[in-house]
């Protein structure tokens, strides 16, 4: 059986968040992924991010499709509702869920197969709608559960465990999202939790579609010499261009930033993201310049990471439509039908 409950013991001195919950309260069942899987590090980063954001567990909805990545919502925040849907269809389910209740926080966990192959259509259209969600792609370049076939994010020349290197153009989630007008685009690495946690926090608090593409190596099928999605390769070509610090609402920016290197951006709820430019040539608020920079670095074989693009101006799906602020699912049914008198009026047109 691959369902194991963790023992419910916690240290009395564990830190508590503003809800009085400990990080243990944000954990899930024991992971059934391979030992050393990058996804488990991402799960740990999500737990930390949600705990620090003081999100009430039952107000968080965990959405996924099918694949190794899509199993992980079972491994964090057990007290949240989870929806493990069908392969590549998590974006549509989240779109409908958001349509019914816009007050929940949505976190979707997907993989490169789930989002860039079978589900690329839904990934693309969720971006177009500017669906208000944090969309994490745990990107390892292979299909794990079916034993190591290349996915659509595999780089040209990357070697499989067996067989010939990949020759097809990879789909880069980040530049795809940028070209489609996504409003928050980040890339991280499962091996760098310090960078990843604030990226996820910003994505959760961003009002609109927030992509976090995380290079998350597959230890079983894609961590060998010649693979471009291995721990070793990622560490070697890893390029921080802009890091982000997340500052909750009503808190002061305390860190001392070097003159000219910090760029605070206020989110809709009053929290702030402080961007720290590591590469001074990078401008994460310009779509055109970001695109060129990113493509140049992709072509150079570098893995650019950080908060790569942000746009807090564009409205998210509900506001584009002019929908009520409260959940549609809670609107009283008796106020939704116009009554028999109006029915008679309507029908008079059909006489």
């Amino acid at each position, binding site marked *: 059986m691959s369902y194991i409950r963790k023992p419910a013991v916690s240290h009395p001195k564990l830190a508590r968040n503003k809800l009085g919950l400990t990080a243990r309260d944000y954990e899930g069942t024991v992971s059934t992924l391979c030992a050393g899987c990058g996804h488990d590090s991402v799960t740990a980063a999500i737990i930390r991010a949600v705990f620090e954001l003081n999100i009430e567990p039952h107000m968080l909805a965990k959405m996924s499709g099918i694949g190794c990545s899509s199993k992980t919502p079972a491994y964090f925040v057990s007290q949240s509702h989870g929806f493990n849907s069908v392969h590549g269809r998590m974006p549509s389910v989240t*779109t409908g869920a958001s349509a019914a209740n816009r007050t929940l926080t949505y976190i979707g966990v997907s993989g490169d197969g789930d989002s860039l192959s079978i589900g690329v259509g839904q990934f693309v259209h969720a971006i177009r709608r500017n669906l208000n969600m944090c969309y994490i792609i745990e990107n390892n370049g292979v299909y794990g559960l079916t034993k190591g076939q290349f996915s659509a994010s595999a780089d040209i020349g990357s070697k499989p465990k067996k067989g010939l290197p990949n020759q097809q153009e990879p789909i880069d989630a980040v530049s795809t999202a940028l070209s489609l007008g996504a409003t928050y685009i980040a890339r991280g690495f499962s091996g760098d939790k310090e960078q990843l946690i604030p990226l996820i926090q910003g994505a959760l608090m961003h009002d609109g579609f927030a992509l976090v593409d995380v290079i998350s190596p597959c230890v079983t099928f894609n961590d060998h010499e010649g693979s471009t999605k291995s721990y070793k390769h990622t560490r070697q070509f890893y390029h921080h261009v802009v890091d982000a610090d997340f500052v909750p609402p009503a808190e002061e920016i305390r860190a001392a930033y070097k003159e000219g290197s910090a760029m605070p951006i206020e989110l809709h709820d009053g929290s702030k993201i402080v961007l720290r430019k590591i590469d001074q040539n990078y401008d994460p608020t310009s779509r055109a310049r970001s695109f060129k920079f990113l493509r140049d670095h992709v072509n150079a074989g570098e893995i650019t990471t950080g908060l790569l693009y942000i746009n807090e101006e564009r409205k998210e799906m509900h506001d584009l439509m002019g929908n009520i602020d409260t959940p549609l699912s809670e609107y009283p049914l008796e106020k939704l039908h116009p*009554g028999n008198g109006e029915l008679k009026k309507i029908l008079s047109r059909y006489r």
Partner: protein
Amino acid sequence: MAKVNDVVVKIATVNGTGSASANGLLMKSIFRMGIPVVGKNYFPSNIQGLPTWYEIRVTGDGYQARSGRVDVMVAMNAQTYARDLAEVSPGGWLIYDSTWPRNRLLHRDDVTVLGIPLSRMCNEHFDGARARILMKNIAYVGALAALLAIDLKTITALLEQTFADKQHLIDSNMEAIRLGFDYANENFACPLPKRVAAMHGTNKHVVIDGNTAAGLGCLFAGATVGAWYPITPSTSLMDAFRSFCQKYRVDPETGKRTYCIIQAEDELAAIGMVLGASWNGARSFTPTSGPGISLMSEFLGFAYYAELPAVIFNVQRAGPSTGMPTRTQQADILSCAYASHGDTKHVLLFPADPGECFYMAQQAFDLADRLQTPVMVLSDLDIGMNDWMVPEFEYDEESVPDRGKVLSAAELEDMEKFYRYLDVDGDGIPYRTLPGTHPKGSYFTRGSGHTKFGAYTEDSAEYQEVLDRLLVKWETARRIVPEPDIEYSKFNKAAILTVGSGAGACKEAIDRLAEQNVALNYGRVRAFPFSEDVKKFIDKHEIVYIVEQNRDAQLRTLLIIDSDADPAKLVSLLHYNGMPINADFVVERVLAENSKGRAA
């Protein structure tokens, strides 16, 4: 002997020329004279320039099906002139635009040809190409008014209502009516023997199409989320819902919308959105047609197993594959009943007319919420896109929508622990919770194997226990779905059993067969799974004619599978050429079966 109020008028035009409004005017005028009418539109899968026909059956007897006859043909399309002339019933009339010479080689002695210079008259009286084309259509309505004795005052009142404050449009339309009306009166012996006369057969009735009625049903059912991908012939359902929402779904305090309609990127996404919304507690639906059901199948199986409500309208069209998108059929019965891989089956509702589309839309939401499963409403193009005369709808304001077993925050607070898939009441329906209600209510929704407690499993016994409990739910569904429509006399040993839009043709056929001393009982299934009464109805007869509009006898197959009916007594009468079934077909086929020795 020609009798009053028994005439079929067929108008042959080219699509995109604005003839629809002229034909609607004609049909509604007759309806407003208190005479029952049936309107059918036969149109191509095309935007402009191909042949299209509109058929109005004036039926003082109030029959619902199309007739096989054409008494008066209005041949406005030179392209189809030959076949239009050929289609006129012996003794009938053909009206054509005599501005241009007609092909005199095509001639029938048994048809009276009436030439009216419609184009010439309209060119003389109206300016601009578009106006001339539109008014030509209105002019033939005027000519028909004279020939059939349609009340001009009724036409005037309709035009005044349609164009309201646009007096110049009322004037120009009336001028065109007059042109046709006067020309017919001056040149022909009006009215024809086949004429109409005012009666009181349409009180408390409306003329409406099924898609509009279903959209209205969704409004009254409290649906808030609609996701869809445009597909003929279902598109007008969402169009109707949207237009009702624009009027009635604006929050009075904030001026914001209390509905969310999403045009999806495909049907895969449309059903995913519906499931996400219903998981979160909104009443959500998607309208589609056969190809859409094929794409939705994976998610439908998910919804069956994860037990999520969903309402799907399948406005069926002629398959297989793209088939004939603008023609009607009932050929998705089996693919809907068992949509998706694995052991899945779904609750189906079968409306017979727009009235049932309105009521069944509401029942579908109640059943989906009650049973926590997808409910598919199987309409068809004939019901969905044609105008039917049906009794005015009523909404019972005392009725309370059935949201099913959803636990409130207070109920969860009092519970020790909540388990999603536990059959507490013995009806096979577990309790569910909505995200955001209460920390105790959280659970993991999945399409993979799960235990009755909601946990992942690959254990055989735990898996099978849930699968078997779903069958208990299926039997609950059998008890609460709509009962069949039955007209039974113990003296009859044979019966017709039909579904959906076959009702009108079958009822008319039973009347006509009775005149020939062939007495049949009538039954119509209204839902799947079949209730006990369906089985009892079959058991009471020696022979049951199963009348349905598909090639493969899908309803018959389903009856054998689900109600254990004796196949030997189920005789198929199958109509599947894409046109709506009519009484002639049923009468002829029943008589043919009788002459084979299967006497009733």
